[in-house]
């Protein structure tokens, strides 16, 4: 159990700056997800918390104590990686026992057995204990990797894309299991991913990273419905939020594309001013009497829903509609949006004008 605080962390690798003055606070017992694209700095952040990487500047605090100079073993954290890195010649039990048999730990054989059995039960791998790991499926191997991390009962779990190598159905299952594990153990989890579905569905808090800086921290719902800027707005949601340039005129949105006038409930930004209107695909509505017109550029059938790409003179817009809606490619449709759901962003800075 531990609070983790990062203060002004910077890190360069040669000419590349990975982190630029990163501040981050993770509370004891929180499931914290760091979301970012490749190169955003999320793995570096995790490795700095783990003590595998030394920051060029800034401090790492664990439970208020300055841990910047501590080595990885002193920090009492466990790391689970995308690659399983198990010992192939050992059985599952051998792999789980391994961290407890190190010379710095003083466990009796009975204690070791008890801990391994308990962890195996938690992860539902008891029946696999005597198998060699090379004979396990991907999902089983990842459970063993997690088991090996849990068995030491560390203060913090650090996970670097642990589900990325698994197929979609198994990922769904392990997502739920990891969340349950987190609530059973009550430990601090820091989970790194580029997958916004994982971030949204697992995190108590989500931190969005871009170019080595933390852009926004919030609950999944805050990140989704109140993004602080266009970068965060487009980081979550499939397909991402539509951003349409236009002007505010007499309390309405006038889009550059097609010069359509659409209603908005609570406009932000100067009258006559240039803004980007943000609207999620599920808040775009096909409506025979709608004020705007587009041509269907693409239809994606997801079974339960369809995702339409509408083309307005070269500007593309996504709309999520029910699977029952029948539309053809190149068909012309009328649409509107839910006026209360529109967000307003500064065209230059990308800032959400509604949060000022």
């Amino acid at each position, binding site marked *: 159990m531990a609070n983790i605080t990062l203060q002004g962390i910077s890190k360069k690798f040669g000419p590349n700056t990975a982190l630029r003055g990163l501040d981050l606070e993770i509370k004891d017992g929180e499931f914290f997800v760091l979301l970012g694209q490749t190169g955003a700095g999320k793995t570096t952040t995790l490795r700095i918390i783990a003590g595998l990487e030394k920051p060029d500047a800034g401090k790492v605090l664990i439970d208020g104590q300055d841990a910047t100079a501590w080595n990885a073993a002193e920090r009492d954290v466990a790391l689970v990686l995308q690659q399983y890195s198990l010992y192939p010649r050992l059985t599952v039990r051998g792999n789980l026992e391994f961290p407890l048999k190190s010379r710095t730990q003083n466990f009796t054989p009975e204690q070791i057995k008890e801990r391994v059995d308990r962890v195996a039960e938690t992860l539902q791998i008891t029946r696999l204990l005597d198998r060699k790991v090379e004979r396990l499926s991907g999902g089983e191997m990842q459970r063993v990797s997690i088991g090996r991390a849990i068995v030491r009962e560390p203060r913090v779990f650090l996970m670097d894309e642990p589900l990325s190598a698994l197929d979609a159905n198994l990922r769904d299952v392990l997502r739920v299991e990891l969340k349950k594990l987190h609530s059973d153990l009550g430990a601090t989890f820091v989970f790194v991913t580029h997958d916004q579905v994982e971030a949204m569905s697992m995190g108590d808090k989500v931190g969005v990273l871009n170019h080595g800086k933390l852009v926004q921290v919030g609950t999944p719902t805050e990140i989704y419905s109140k993004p602080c800027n266009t970068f965060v707005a487009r980081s979550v949601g499939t*397909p991402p939020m539509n951003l349409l340039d236009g002007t505010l005129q007499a309390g309405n949105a006038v889009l550059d594309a097609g010069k359509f006038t659409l209603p908005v409930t609570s406009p932000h930004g100067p009258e006559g001013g240039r803004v980007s209107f943000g609207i*999620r695909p599920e808040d775009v509505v096909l409506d025979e009497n709608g004020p705007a017109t587009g041509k269907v550029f693409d239809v994606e059938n997801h*079974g339960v829903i369809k995702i339409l790409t509408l083309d307005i003179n070269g500007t593309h817009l996504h709309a999520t509609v029910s699977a029952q809606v029948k539309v053809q490619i190149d068909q012309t449709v009328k649409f509107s949006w839910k006026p209360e759901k529109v967000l307003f962003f500064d065209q230059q800075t990308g800032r959400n004008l509604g949060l000022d």
Partner: protein
Amino acid sequence: MAQIDIRNVQKFFGAHQVLKNLNLTIEDGEFVVMLGQSGGGKTTALRAIAGLETVTSGQILIDGKEVQDRKAADRDIAFVFQSFSLYPHMTVRENIAFPLRAVRMNAAERDKAVKEVAETLQIAEHLDRKPSALSGGDMQRVAIGRALVRRPQALLMDEPLGVLDSKLREQMRAEIKRLHIARGSTSVYVTHDQIEAMSLADRIVILHDGVLQQVGPPDEVYLHPQNLFVAKFVGSPVMNVTPVRIDANRVALNGAETGFEFPETALSNLRNVNSELSLGIRPEAVLLKHEKTEGYVEVVTTNIEPLGSHDIVDVQLGGTSLRARTASGFVSGEGQRVWVGLDPSQAHFFDTATGLNLRGAN
């Protein structure tokens, strides 16, 4: 343009049979997606059509002519791989023109064909650059351009978007579909990604263990899966599948005290089935209510996945966990009391042992 006919095709790698009596007709101008897990046989089937793999027995016909013994080069088919396989020392223009050199087209015609395909794929401005200077999406566009430039009878693609990031994949998906519509060439596309298959295909072909499981348009495969493999492979999150028993007019889940009432028409042909039954129901057909409702069963929520546009809520019923798709924020947290009901019109019953769908949903 070509019709492709696969008849009784068997393929062995040593003792291992990867295609088991495959029969499939791909119509002229159709976009067919072969969907399955790795090892299911989809890539082998594609390579057999292309002539990159021989078949152990059976026929492959292109426009009525048997081609199974012809070399790849004589089949007039183009292939796009997951790895872009461009010539790094040639420019984009030279890469695209390469297949035309082999057929000794004159320079003027060649330039015209290259320019036309580059414009369709929106890579005209990159023609004089080397592949290493391009993004992943543009590299794959060049690879597709090289495949299309000689106007092949059919275009075969093996996970062409597999290495691209998800945003680019979505964009390229739409482009590939538009390209297919514009060019009208018969296309066969292999993927393990069910969303890609649902989005692109005129018809989806699902292969598992070398056996064809189902062929049909995306809606049909989603709404009327013929067996448990298809039911669980298509759709996200995965369809709920759980053992059930039929008591009078009720469907009871294992370990649950009360069952769900179903109309007689849904159950009549299940009463004579002697084998174990499994209920299959998609998350959008698992309905939740905040208040006590006739025909609904009281349960407790165990997990919430807020996805922004909607939530996936898990509820525990007896020994079974069911996933439901709800409006976002419908349930505020775990451990909440709600009432769960099932939509009989979207329920499937499978023979647990054989996996066969005993009665497709209406």
